């Protein structure tokens, strides 16, 4: 395919579907962008500018057409303390640095590192995210009247029951419109989006974050940027795989990582917060018929258009309606099958998943949770691998003992292996059959030397058989060294 054909295919092969889906997504993005800004502790303007800028830029530079990226909950949750301690300007700087780190990630083609994040960690990640989105809404219920509770309930009822009757209009939009109209007409006096901060009334402009450019600033923002970059890539590549599956097409994960980075750098310079791909919105987009690059572009542009034109109405949306929508987002994000199947999956996977969720809920930091999950998985893996099984075959006549070794011999398993053998044998000869074993490191070779030595003290000779090619190469390399220098 030539470049022009490719561009044509990615942009204009599905114009009608992309435009319609983009508009649906724009409507669904507005409440989320506002709610995520409130979670992060910034004006709704910051999330709306971010959603506009990220969606538009990613439509050009992303690697996964049909995927929607904007301000997200996962990223907002990581920003809370930075905003509280240092303010918006540092968040914008951190956003730019996040983008730079992600660009590097893409340029050095590190998407393949994703294979070190086990599935149980990813499941823990989305579940923890769902729980945090839910708990972040609880603050809106403090000191509220029953009117607020009733409005939240009404929002949820409309969201979940309306699709049973019609799917022509997005049920979240209907819920927001109905609840807002009700609140205005009845003059309930409940808190609204307008009480939470300013909304944009102009297009975003280019500005450089007002921060001192020194090492101290870098020391403040770098840990945040690193966590944001990591979580952003993780959620974006997971979402890309989901969109791959929904559209039955492939995507360029490294290009997507780089694209996320470019979008975040640009977003930091127009006063938006860092974002990433969104699972829920991407699913809505594809289900609504959006598969090309055009749908993300339309989503971003239409969102900005709506905010500038309808801003006076948007500020009147009750927080109750927003909280209802966020509860729906949280329910949709949670992987319910992981709970119903928890007794069916391997116990160690379940423990990893629960550990990720527990760590995130405790620390409020998705990055730490993922890190803990990866480490724990690695420990479980090493523990499972370190189980070495030994079968004994004794020949009285020949005074020979044959040990058939099954398993992986490496630093974590050798100690157990060495002690499993019987050194007080009535034998002249011991055969270690390693046909079903593999030597991995220096410790493994060392263990064999040790065994030979221990039997040697008792005048028993040791023969090693069945080494596979890789193991004997290792043995030659290391064994040769130790023999030459040591004995």
């Amino acid at each position, binding site marked *: 395919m030539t470049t022009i054909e490719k561009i044509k295919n990615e942009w204009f092969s599905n114009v009608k579907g992309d435009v319609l889906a983009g508009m649906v997504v724009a409507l669904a993005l507005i409440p989320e962008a506002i709610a995520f800004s409130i979670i992060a502790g910034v004006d709704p303007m910051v999330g709306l500018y971010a959603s506009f800028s990220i969606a538009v830029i990613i439509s050009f530079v992303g690697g996964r057409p049909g995927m929607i990226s904007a301000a997200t909950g996962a990223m907002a949750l990581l920003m809370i303390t930075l905003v509280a301690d240092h303010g918006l300007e540092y968040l914008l700087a951190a956003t730019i640095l996040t983008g730079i780190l992600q660009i590097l990630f893409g340029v050095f083609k590190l998407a393949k590192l994703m294979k070190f994040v086990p599935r149980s960690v990813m499941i823990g990640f989305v579940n923890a995210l769902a729980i945090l989105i839910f708990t972040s809404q609880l603050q809106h219920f403090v000191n509220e009247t029953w009117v607020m509770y009733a409005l939240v309930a009404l929002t949820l009822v409309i969201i979940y029951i309306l699709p049973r009757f019609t799917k022509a209009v997005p049920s979240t939009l209907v819920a927001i419109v109905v609840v807002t109209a009700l609140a205005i007409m009845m003059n309930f006096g409940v808190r609204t989006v307008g009480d939470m901060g300013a909304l944009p009334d102009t297009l975003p402009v280019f500005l450089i974050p007002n921060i001192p450019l020194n090492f101290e600033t870098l020391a403040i923002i770098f840990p945040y940027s690193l966590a944001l970059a990591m979580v952003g890539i993780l959620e974006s590549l997971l979402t890309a795989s989901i969109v791959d599956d*929904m559209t039955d097409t492939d995507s360029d994960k490294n290009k997507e990582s780089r694209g996320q980075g470019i979008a975040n750098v640009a977003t930091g310079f127009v006063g938006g917060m860092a974002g990433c791909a969104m699972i829920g919105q991407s699913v809505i987009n594809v289900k609504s018929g959006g598969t090309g690059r055009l749908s993300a572009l339309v989503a971003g542009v239409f969102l900005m258009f709506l905010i500038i034109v309808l801003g006076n109405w948007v500020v009147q949306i009750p927080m109750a309606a927003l909280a209802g929508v966020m509860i729906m987002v949280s329910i949709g994000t949670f992987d319910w099958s992981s709970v119903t199947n928890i007794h069916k999956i391997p116990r160690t996977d379940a423990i990893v998943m629960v550990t990720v969720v527990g760590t995130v809920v405790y620390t409020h930091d998705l990055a730490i949770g993922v890190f803990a999950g990866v480490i724990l998985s690695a420990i479980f893996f090493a523990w499972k691998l370190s189980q070495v099984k030994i079968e004994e075959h004794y020949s009285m006549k020949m005074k020979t003992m044959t040990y058939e070794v099954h398993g992986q011999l490496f630093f974590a398993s050798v100690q157990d292996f060495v002690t499993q053998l019987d050194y007080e044998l009535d034998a002249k000869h011991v055969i270690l059959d390693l046909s079903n074993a593999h030597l991995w490191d220096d410790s493994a070779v060392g263990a064999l030397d040790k065994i030979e030595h221990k039997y040697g003290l008792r005048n028993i000779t040791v023969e090693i058989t069945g080494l596979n090619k890789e193991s004997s190469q290792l043995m030659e390399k290391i064994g040769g060294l130790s023999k030459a220098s040591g004995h």
Partner: protein
Amino acid sequence: MFKKILLAIDGSKHSERATEKAIELAKLQDSASIEMLYVVAGNKSKSDVLHYGDSDTASLKRKRLLADYKEMIEAENISTDTTVLHGKDGTAEAIIAHANEHDYDVLVLGSRGLNTMQTMVLGSVSHKVVKYVKAPVLMVK
């Protein structure tokens, strides 16, 4: 009578019974064929990718899942092929659209057996399908 049979499969126990019934139907007729239909709705993509790691692995698992039914059908010397639909908004809608776009003599599907609450929120696939598919529908309980 029932020559071109469409068999909707979701991989549950009900699908197995539905497959058995589809085979019985096909045997009534010389050179009948069964087309298996599997729908990957949006949220299914999400949970499959989460549990299997990526799209390729998820596709492989689905292929394996369908292979069992394929074997069942081919063991009876009935010709069969497979259609997997991706990225659809709702399983029922996808089955209805596919069934009505092509010319089938009958649609066979299993009933999921949801409780009242689940049916209220998720909607019953079989109910919608029975209502909107133009061809005769055999619902296997």
